[in-house]
């Protein structure tokens, strides 16, 4: 085997006192070879980003390596002075980050930020630097590169920004590119494009790429080799195929098992039930800005959306960010005022209720939120969080707390949770509390808005199981809003695909995945990372 371009030997990085564990990275050994993409995969907090930052010498102030070596070109990078590292950074080792918005200086033009790479290494004249910037932008496939070069970051889309980041990283043709979750913040179709771009460039230049991700789908798309990290340690390494198809370590197996399968089952034939929720011609238009002298900006977030939901049924609304899927959910629960349309809930039009009557009617439609950290009042105990709703609807305090206790049990939490504060719980547990809260009012319909998107994949699987179980036991009608088609495939009976405020296609989940009729739906499904691999495996 050839020499690795870079090897990490027994790297150990200490966390500051008071952290939840002593070492962020604990005795990690890794080798990176020229011309390969090595994926480091792990859940949040596994230490994968720390390792990457250590290679660049960009660890946070309070975190320091205590043991091990990072050998590049026969020398240990950890021994290098800051000045020596500065020379290597950008020239030999380059890095791209998760958030392309915040990773670019908002006050500088794109071309200047690219030109800085040359400037840092005293290469080229200012004029040629600008010309190079345009060339690089062309190479990473930005439309109208000359214009983009003069643009400020905020004038570009998320995908374009990430392309700028890549252009910047590639400016000096580094040997090693470190990509820290570069597609996590992007929509699925954009993600597919960026992954392809990285793959292509890596092939073209024969770079070594270390790609950090939490998403096995992405791994399947891009990795040559995979290293799986858990709590600072590498638990398994191997070729992509070997690890994905034949995981050895229990943790790896658990992770892979937790990935929602794309194969949506044929929906069981249900006996016809009366629809509990009927939505007709729902529309919502935003107007922002505008005043005495300027015209407002108009965005049609929801355009003429109609849907029906029967008891016990789960409807998925999928779409990319900005498609209007969340607006639909919020219009339904009246967190947002629809401009037009009717929302008939058990025969009553919710869309036009006001004041006290709206407040009273709210009990029958509830919501589960995305962020388990933001959805619970940090200054209220769990018991109060759940009991508040019933109490607001006139249930006596004691009874409300008893109901809260029953619900906690139902969602798989200990009753003692009632007297504790949210910060004492993990993300998954909090999401269970959120579900209990939604159930507390015994609603007819529950809307889950990206309810599992913020969770790690293993936790996500548990919560999805819980929801499926509850749906079955309580015969709930559920609207499941998500950007993740895999999740939708797993839990939904029917799916509505949303694009630019409209339902472009609605149908049974199985049909949508296997026989998409709409072109956009097809693009969306084809962009799902790891799909090809999965299809190939399933055969």
């Amino acid at each position, binding site marked *: 085997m050839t020499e690795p371009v870079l090897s990490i030997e027994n790297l150990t990085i200490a966390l500051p006192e008071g952290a939840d564990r002593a070492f962020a990275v604990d005795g990690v050994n890794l080798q990176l070879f020229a011309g390969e993409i090595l994926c480091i995969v792990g859940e949040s907090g596994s230490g994968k980003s720390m390792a990457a930052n250590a290679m*660049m010498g*960009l660890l946070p102030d309070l975190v320091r390596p205590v043991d091990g070596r990072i050998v590049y070109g026969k020398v240990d990078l950890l021994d290098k002075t800051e000045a020596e590292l*500065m*020379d*290597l*950074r*950008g*020239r030999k080792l*380059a*890095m791209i*980050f998760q*958030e392309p918005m*915040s*990773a*670019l*200086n*908002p*006050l*500088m033009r794109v071309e200047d930020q690219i030109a*800085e*790479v040359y*400037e*840092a*290494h005293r290469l080229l004249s200012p004029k040629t630097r600008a010309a190079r910037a345009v060339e690089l932008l062309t190479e990473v496939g930005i439309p109208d590169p000359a214009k983009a070069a003069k643009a*400020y970051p*905020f*004038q570009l889309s998320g995908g374009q920004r990430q392309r700028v*980041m890549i252009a*910047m*990283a590639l400016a000096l043709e580094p040997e090693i590119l470190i990509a820290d979750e570069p597609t996590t913040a992007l929509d699925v179709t954009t993600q597919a494009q960026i992954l392809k771009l990285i793959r292509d460039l890596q092939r073209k230049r024969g770079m070594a790429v270390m790609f950090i991700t939490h998403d096995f789908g992405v791994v399947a798309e891009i990795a040559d080799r995979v290293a799986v990290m858990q709590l600072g340690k590498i638990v398994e390494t191997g070729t992509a195929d070997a690890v994905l198809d034949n995981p050895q370590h229990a943790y790896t197996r658990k992770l892979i098992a937790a990935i929602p399968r794309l194969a949506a089952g044929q929906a069981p034939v249900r006996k016809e039930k009366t629809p509990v929720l009927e939505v007709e011609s729902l529309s919502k238009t935003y107007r922002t800005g505008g*005043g*005495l*002298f*300027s015209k407002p900006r108009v965005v049609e977030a929801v355009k003429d959306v109609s849907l029906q939901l029967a008891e016990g049924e789960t409807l998925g609304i999928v779409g990319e960010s900005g498609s209007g899927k969340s607006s639909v959910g919020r219009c339904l629960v009246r967190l947002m005022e629809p401009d037009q349309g009717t929302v008939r809930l058990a025969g009553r039009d919710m869309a036009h209720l006001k004041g006290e009557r709206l407040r009273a009617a709210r009990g029958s439609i509830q919501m589960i939120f995305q962020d388990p950290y933001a959805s619970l009042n940090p200054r209220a105990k769990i018991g109060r969080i759940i009991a508040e709703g019933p109490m607001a609807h006139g249930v006596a305090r004691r009874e409300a707390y008893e109901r809260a206790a029953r619900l906690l049990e139902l969602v798989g939490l200990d009753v003692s949770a009632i007297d504790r504060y949210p910060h004492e719980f993990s993300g998954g547990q909090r999401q269970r509390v959120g579900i209990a809260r939604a159930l507390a009012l015994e609603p007819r319909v529950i809307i889950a808005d990206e309810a599992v998107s913020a969770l790690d994949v293993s936790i996500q699987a548990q919560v999805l199981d819980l929801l499926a179980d509850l749906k079955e036991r309580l015969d709930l009608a559920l609207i499941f809003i998500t950007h993740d088609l895999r999740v939708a495939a797993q839990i939904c009976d029917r799916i509505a695909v949303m694009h630019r405020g409209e339902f472009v296609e609605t149908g049974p989940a199985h049909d949508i995945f296997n026989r998409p009729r709409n072109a956009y739906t097809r693009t969306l499904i084809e962009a799902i990372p790891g799909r090809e691999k999965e299809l190939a495996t399933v055969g």
Partner: protein
Amino acid sequence: MLRFILMRLVKAAIILIAILTLNFFLIHAAPGDPAAVLAGEAGAADAQFIEQLRERFGLDKPLLTQLGIYLGGVLQLDLGYSYRQQMPVADLIFARLPATLLLTLTAFVIALVLGTLAGVLASARVGKWSDTVISTLALLFYATPLFWVALMAVLVFSVFLNWLPGFGYETVGANYTGFRRALDIAQHLILPATTLGLFFMAVYMRMTRASMLEVSQLDFVKTARAKGLKPGIIQRRHIFRNAMLPVVTLAGLQAGQLVGGAVLTETVFAWPGIGRLMFEALAQRDYNLLLGIFFVSAAMVLLFNLITDILYRVVDPRIRVAS
């Protein structure tokens, strides 16, 4: 941009009229009136005399009529006439305004330049002794009453050491001209401008330091480091420029308040500015003069805010291009 400025001017005009109206009623709610004060200074007066004065000042008219007359004048840029000083209000204010502007702008520049410099320095050596010294000094300046520093400065530099003049705008009666006069004024300016600037210097320093530290945690700074840029360039080009945005906002807000702070400084240093004029006008119930001063100082606040906003647009492309 032009439309933006126009819009801001319209808004400013509305605020100004609101301020004038509020103050008009406030001042008239105060006990006593200028006629009585003026009569008092004459050493004796009878009802006839006071009535005569009231009529002359238009104080015999209903309050709303007076307000209407006043605002009507203001709309024609006529700030009225000070009966106490026997001069048009505008003349009085513009005679004093240069002194106040000189004082406040000098203090402002001192505060902004030294404050941000110190803030940058402290943030660059965060945790080291130079940071501790700068931060402690800033905290002290921040906590010290302005008028007291002023008094102590006079005591030390003027009375004990006799290095600098402790009062006034220039050497009275010296009749310097040209450069000699400028130098003379500059000497008189040092103590008041520095003491007035100290507090704001502390504010800017603390703000700059905090802002620099905050920005230095942002992702794009990491990007800049990943490019291999030198720390100095990262500090200047990436951190400083972004860190200055909140400082600019604050500077705009504070610049307006400098005018208020000038009342104390002008009192201690006998600086012939509008701060003192206001205090005198207040005691004498010189309604028109007082309203005029409020008009001018509020206009200055609004002007500073406008300049800040324009500056902000220049610095921050997001706002500039979005409009």
